[in-house]
């Protein structure tokens, strides 16, 4: 491979941290969930890169697992968003702050 493994890791890291920024900064819950998907995909990329580097299918299986979890989590997360903001005036993550001190 002419592309070094570390390049893929760097790319994965950049994508991951873009997702992190999205989670922290955005207030629309849907965007937040999408940023979480971005983070999970960054992890998938890293896993696939390593799996290719060491020629080990176990990495692929793990990616499969991550995809499943991501799907499940996206489903449930969206269900929560739907339930929470069904008739709300503002669709805003800052509004669900009843656990404040």
């Amino acid at each position, binding site marked *: 491979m002419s592309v070094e493994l570390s390049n893929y890791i760097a790319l994965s890291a950049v994508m991951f941290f873009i997702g992190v920024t999205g989670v922290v900064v955005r*207030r629309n819950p849907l965007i937040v969930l999408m940023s979480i998907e971005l983070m999970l995909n960054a992890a998938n990329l890293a896993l696939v890169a390593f799996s290719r580097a060491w020629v080990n299918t*176990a990495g692929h299986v793990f990616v*499969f697992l991550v995809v499943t979890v991501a*799907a499940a989590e996206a*489903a449930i997360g969206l269900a*929560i*968003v*739907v339930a929470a903001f069904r008739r709300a005036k503002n669709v805003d993550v800052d509004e669900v702050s009843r656990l404040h001190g």
Partner: protein
Amino acid sequence: MIAFYALSIVLIASAIFTVTQRSPVYSVVGLLVNFITLATLFFTLNAEFLGVIQLVVYSGAILMLFVFVIALLSSGVGPFSEGPDRLPRILLPAILSVLAGFGFLAFGVLHAPLGTPPVAHSASVLGPVGSANVFGSVGDFGVALFTTQLLPFEVTAFILMVAVIGVVAIAGDAVPQATRGRHVRRKRSKDREPIVKAGR
């Protein structure tokens, strides 16, 4: 090599696009581009099966789920409205900490040895894409999934079942009304109290 750089630029650009757009529909589109690019990257890494899975599951199912929810939540024709910003100056600390994390990660990765590869679990060999039992092919993946990595497979099934139940429980509809009054009727979902009180 060029492919890698081109794809990585698209990847990062679409990621930034996803995160920064005001409208969630635009973000979904950006995410779609991101996923497709990622699938392409998988293909270049000999992970064909995973690339297909990425396209089918992620961009095909999950993103459609997002689109449906956007449709569901949009009350009428107006755009999403957001309340007052309670943490107005959070951008700078977020970016700083993210850059710090990235910086240290890079430092660590560059200065630390990446460790010895583990003992090969799969008897796969690299070969031309498409042939059976070649690394990354469906057969190879299936062999691994159903033999050496059986536990993740079972766990996957369990997770999916839990997810389905959870979704129905959280956002599902009420039980149909033909019960002749003997069972306790669950509240219709639209009569349930929202978690966020309207007008707060």
